[in-house]
C-alpha cells in the first residue's frame, strides 16, 4: 500500500503535462493523455483497495512529508486509507475515468480541448487529496482545489460572459461555506490541539462532553462548509447556474464528486457531529428541507440540465438526511449509487443536447426514443436508479435503506419529508422522460408544438435517427451496468442481499444497520414503491401540460414561476446581500480610505494656497511682519 500516493499523483502529473505542453497537442491527444492519467489513477486505486482489503487492517496512514509544524500544531502531507476513503477513491477514480473517456469524444472539436482535460485532471487530483487527507489542513487544500476547478470548469467557455458569471456565483457562494469550514478547523485545532482527523476525534471524545458549546460550534461551522460545497439550503443557489459548464463537468463535479464532498466531510468528522446532537438534527432537517424544496423546483424546470441539477440537490438532501439520523453507511452507499446514476444521466443529457444542436429545452424535445434508442435505454436505467425502482436499480437499495433508517430513528416528520421527496422524484423524472423521449403525436404534441416550421428542435428533418458515437456509448454502457448492479453492494436483507458495503464501512464508520424487523423494512419499501409508481401518471400529465403551454405560448403561472426560480432564493439573496453591498460600493465611490491618504496631499495643497497669499510683494508688509515677529519672539523668550 506504499503506492497510495500514486492515486492522486497520476492526475496531478496529467495536469502538469497538459498545462505545459497541452497547447502543442493536436486532435484527441489531450483527451487521451488526460484519460490515461485518470485511468492509471483508477488502476492504482483498485490495486491499493485490494491490498487494503487483503491486509485486513482498519486503517493505514502514509506520510509523505511534513508540511509545517509550529507552536504545537503540525500538518503533513499524509494520506489515510480506511474503509471510507477506499470507497471514496474508488468512486472518484472509476467514475472519473469513465467520464474522461466519454469526454474524449464529447468535447472533440471544442476550443481549449487540452485545457479541459488539464482542469479535469487537476480536479480529480484535488478530490483525491480531499478524501485521502489525514488532517484537516490537507483536506482543506483539496477542498479549495476542487472549488477552484469547479470555477474553472463552469466557466470553461469563457467567451460567453454568462458562463463567467455562473462560475463566479458558484465560487462566491461556496466561499461562504469555505470560510465557515476554515473557522471550524481553527476551532477544532485550538480546542483540541491537533489538525489530524483521527487525533482530534479521539481527543474530542475524551475532552468534549456531549452537547458542549465547543462541539456544537465546531460541528455547526463544519456543517456550514459542507452545505456550501454540497449545495444544500441555504447555500444552494449556485448549482442550477453551474449547469453552464459542459455536461461532463456537470456529471463529474456537480453530481458525482465535488457536491458529495460535503457528505464525505460530515461522515469523516462524524465524531464531532455525534458530540453535538442539535447540529446533527439540523443536518437531518436541512437535508429533508432541501430535498423537498429542490424536488419541487425540479418538477417545473424546462432545461434538461437544470432538472438534473435540482435533482442532484434533492438526492444530496437524502444523504444529509441519512447523516442526520445517524445512518452513516447509508449515506455513503447512496453517495456511491447516486454517483453512478446521476453521472449517467448527465452524460446522456450531454449526448442529447449535442445531438440536437445545443437544444436544452425539454419541451422542444420528443420522440427521441425512436431516434436515439441507445441513449433512451441508458437514460431509462439511470431514471430507474434515480426513482429507486426495484429490483434492478442501485438507487432502490440505497434510498430505501435511508428511508428505513429514518423510520427507525423515530423522527416521523423526516420520514414523511423523505416520502414526499420520493413522490417528487418520480414526478420530475417521469415528466422528463415523457417530454424528452415520449412519442409526440401521442402526447398531443403535433408539429405546431415547435417554434420552427416543419423542422424539429434541431433543425433536422422530423424523423431520422441520431446515432451515438461509440466513444461516448461505451462509457455510458459501463455506467449503466454499474447502475444496474451497484445495488448489490448493500442489498436489503429482507430481499436476500448481504450488506457488503455497510460491513466494509463499519471499519471506519459506526455501523448502523437498518436493524428493524425485516417485515417493517419490507413494508416501508412497499410504501415508497407505491408512491413512486403513483408518480408516473402524474408525471405524464405534467409533461403534457408543459408541452401544451409551450404550444400555446403561455408562461408559467404564479406558483409555477416561484418553483421554477428555485423558491426565489436568488431574489432574496440579491435583496439581502447584493443590494446593500452595491449601495455601499456606490456611496464609497470616492473611496474613503483613499481620501484619507489623499487628504494629506490635499491639505498640504490648500495650506500652501493659503500661505501663498502672504507673498504680496509689498515690502512694508514684510517689514511689519518682521517687526511683529521680532516682538513676539522676544516676548516669548522673556516671558515663557
Amino acid at each position: 500500500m506504499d503506492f497510495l500516493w500514486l492515486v492522486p499523483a497520476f492526475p496531478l502529473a496529467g495536469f502538469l503535462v497538459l498545462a505545459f505542453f497541452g497547447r502543442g497537442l493536436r486532435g484527441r491527444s489531450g483527451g487521451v493523455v488526460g484519460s490515461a492519467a485518470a485511468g492509471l489513477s483508477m488502476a492504482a486505486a483498485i490495486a491499493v483497495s485490494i491490498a487494503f482489503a487483503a491486509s485486513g487492517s482498519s486503517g493505514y496512514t502514509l506520510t509523505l512529508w511534513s508540511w509545517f509544524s509550529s507552536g504545537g500544531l503540525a500538518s503533513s502531507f499524509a494520506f489515510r486509507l480506511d474503509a471510507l476513503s477506499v470507497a471514496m477513491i474508488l468512486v472518484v477514480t472509476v467514475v472519473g475515468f469513465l467520464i474522461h473517456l466519454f469526454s474524449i469524444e464529447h468535447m472533440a472539436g471544442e476550443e481549449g480541448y487540452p485545457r479541459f482535460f488539464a482542469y479535469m485532471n487537476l480536479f480529480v487530483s484535488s478530490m483525491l487529496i480531499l478524501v485521502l487527507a489525514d488532517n484537516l489542513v490537507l483536506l482543506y487544500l483539496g477542498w479549495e482545489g476542487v472549488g477552484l476547478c469547479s470555477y474553472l470548469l463552469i466557466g470553461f467557455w469563457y467567451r460567453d460572459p454568462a458562463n463567467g458569471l455562473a462560475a463566479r456565483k458558484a465560487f462566491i457562494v461556496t466561499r461562504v461555506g469555505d470560510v465557515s469550514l476554515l473557522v471550524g478547523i481553527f476551532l477544532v485545532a485550538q480546542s483540541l490541539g491537533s489538525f489530524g482527523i483521527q487525533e482530534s476525534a479521539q481527543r474530542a471524545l475524551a475532552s468534549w462532553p456531549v452537547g458542549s458549546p465547543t462541539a456544537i460550534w465546531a460541528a455547526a461551522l463544519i456543517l456550514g462548509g459542507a452545505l456550501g460545497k454540497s449545495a444544500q439550503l441555504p447555500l444552494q443557489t449556485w448549482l442550477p447556474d453551474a449547469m453552464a459548464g459542459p455536461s461532463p463537468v456537470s456529471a463529474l463535479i456537480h453530481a458525482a464528486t465535488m457536491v458529495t464532498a460535503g457528505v464525505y466531510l460530515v461522515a469523516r468528522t462524524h465524531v464531532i457531529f455525534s458530540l453535538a446532537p442539535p447540529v446533527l438534527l439540523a443536518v437531518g432537517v436541512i437535508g429533508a428541507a432541501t430535498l423537498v424544496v429542490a424536488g419541487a423546483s425540479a418538477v417545473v424546470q424546462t432545461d434538461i440540465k437544470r432538472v438534473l441539477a435540482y435533482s442532484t440537490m434533492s438526492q444530496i438532501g437524502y444523504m444529509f438526511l441519512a447523516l442526520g439520523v445517524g445512518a452513516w453507511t447509508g449515506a455513503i452507499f447512496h453517495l456511491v449509487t447516486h454517483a453512478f446514476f446521476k453521472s449517467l444521466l448527465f452524460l446522456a443529457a450531454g449526448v442529447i443536447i449535442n445531438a440536437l444542436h445545443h437544444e436544452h429545452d425539454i419541451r422542444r424535445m420528443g420522440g427521441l426514443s425512436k431516434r436515439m434508442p441507445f441513449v433512451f435505454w441508458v437514460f431509462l436505467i439511470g431514471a430507474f436508479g434515480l426513482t429507486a425502482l426495484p429490483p434492478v436499480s442501485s438507487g432502490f437499495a440505497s434510498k430505501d435503506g435511508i428511508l428505513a433508517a429514518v423510520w427507525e430513528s423515530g423522527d416521523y416528520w423526516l420520514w414523511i419529508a423523505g416520502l414526499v421527496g420520493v413522490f417528487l422524484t418520480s414526478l420530475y423524472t417521469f415528466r422528463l422522460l415523457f417530454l424528452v423521449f415520449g412519442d409526440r403525436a401521442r402526447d398531443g404534441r403535433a408539429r405546431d408544438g415547435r417554434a420552427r416550421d416543419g423542422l424539429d428542435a434541431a433543425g433536422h428533418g422530423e424523423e431520422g435517427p441520431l446515432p451515438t458515437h461509440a466513444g461516448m456509448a461505451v462509457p455510458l454502457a459501463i455506467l449503466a451496468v454499474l447502475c444496474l448492479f451497484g445495488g448489490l453492494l448493500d442489498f436489503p436483507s429482507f430481499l436476500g442481499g448481504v450488506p457488503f458495503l455497510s460491513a466494509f464501512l463499519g471499519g471506519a464508520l459506526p455501523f448502523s444497520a437498518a436493524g428493524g424487523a425485516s417485515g417493517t423494512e419490507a413494508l416501508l419499501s412497499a410504501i415508497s414503491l407505491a408512491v413512486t409508481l403513483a408518480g408516473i401518471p402524474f408525471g405524464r400529465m405534467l409533461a403534457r401540460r408543459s408541452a401544451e403551454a409551450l404550444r400555446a405560448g403561455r408562461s408559467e403561472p404564479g406558483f409555477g414561476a416561484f418553483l421554477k426560480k428555485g423558491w426565489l432564493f436568488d431574489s432574496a439573496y440579491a435583496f439581502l446581500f447584493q443590494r446593500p453591498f452595491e449601495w455601499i460600493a456606490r456611496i464609497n465611490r470616492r473611496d474613503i480610505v483613499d481620501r484619507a491618504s489623499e487628504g494629506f496631499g490635499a491639505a498640504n495643497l490648500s495650506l500652501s494656497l493659503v500661505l501663498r497669499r502672504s507673498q504680496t510683494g509689498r515690502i512694508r508688509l514684510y517689514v511689519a511682519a518682521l517687526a511683529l515677529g521680532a516682538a513676539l519672539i522676544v516676548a516669548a523668550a522673556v516671558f515663557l
Partner: protein
Amino acid sequence: MNPALLVSGLIAVAATILVIVQRNAVHALLYLIVSLFALAVSMLILGASFAAALEIVVYAGAILVLFVFVVMMVGAASSTFKPSAWILPALLGAALLAELVYVSLGRPAGQAGGAASVAPKAVGMALFGPYLLGSEIAAFLLLSGLVGAFRLARRDEPPSAEAGKEQSR
C-alpha cells in the same frame, strides 16, 4: 552717572524722533547727523574713544554725507502721509521698546559699572588677534559693496565703444 551722558543721550533721542517725522529729506539727514554726534559724545563719556571717533568719521562723515549727495542728486523727496498711518507702527514700536527696556534693565551690571575706558590699543589687539577672521571678512564685504555699487550706478556705455563692438563682430 555723568550728567553729560544724560544730556547727550536725551539729545540723541530727541534728534532721532525728529528725523522720522520730517517731511523734507535734507532736514531729516541733518537731524540724523546731530543725533550721531550726540551718540558719539555718549560713547566718549563711556570710555570708548576709538568707537566715538569712528562714529563721527565713518558714520556721520561718510555714510550720511553719501546720503546727502544722493538726495541732492535725486531731489529732496517730500513724501506725504496720513497721520493715521502712524498708529499701528507706533503701537508695534512701543511694544518692542517696552520689551527691550524690560530685558536690558534686568541684567546684572558689569563689574566695571560702566565707566571704564577701553584704549584703542586694546581694540586693535583684539581686532587683529582673535577677531582677525572677522576683519578679513569685513574687508571682503566692503569690496563686494564697492563692486556692486560701481556696477549698479554706472551709466550706459559711450556710443563709440558700442560702435566699435558692432564693427568687430
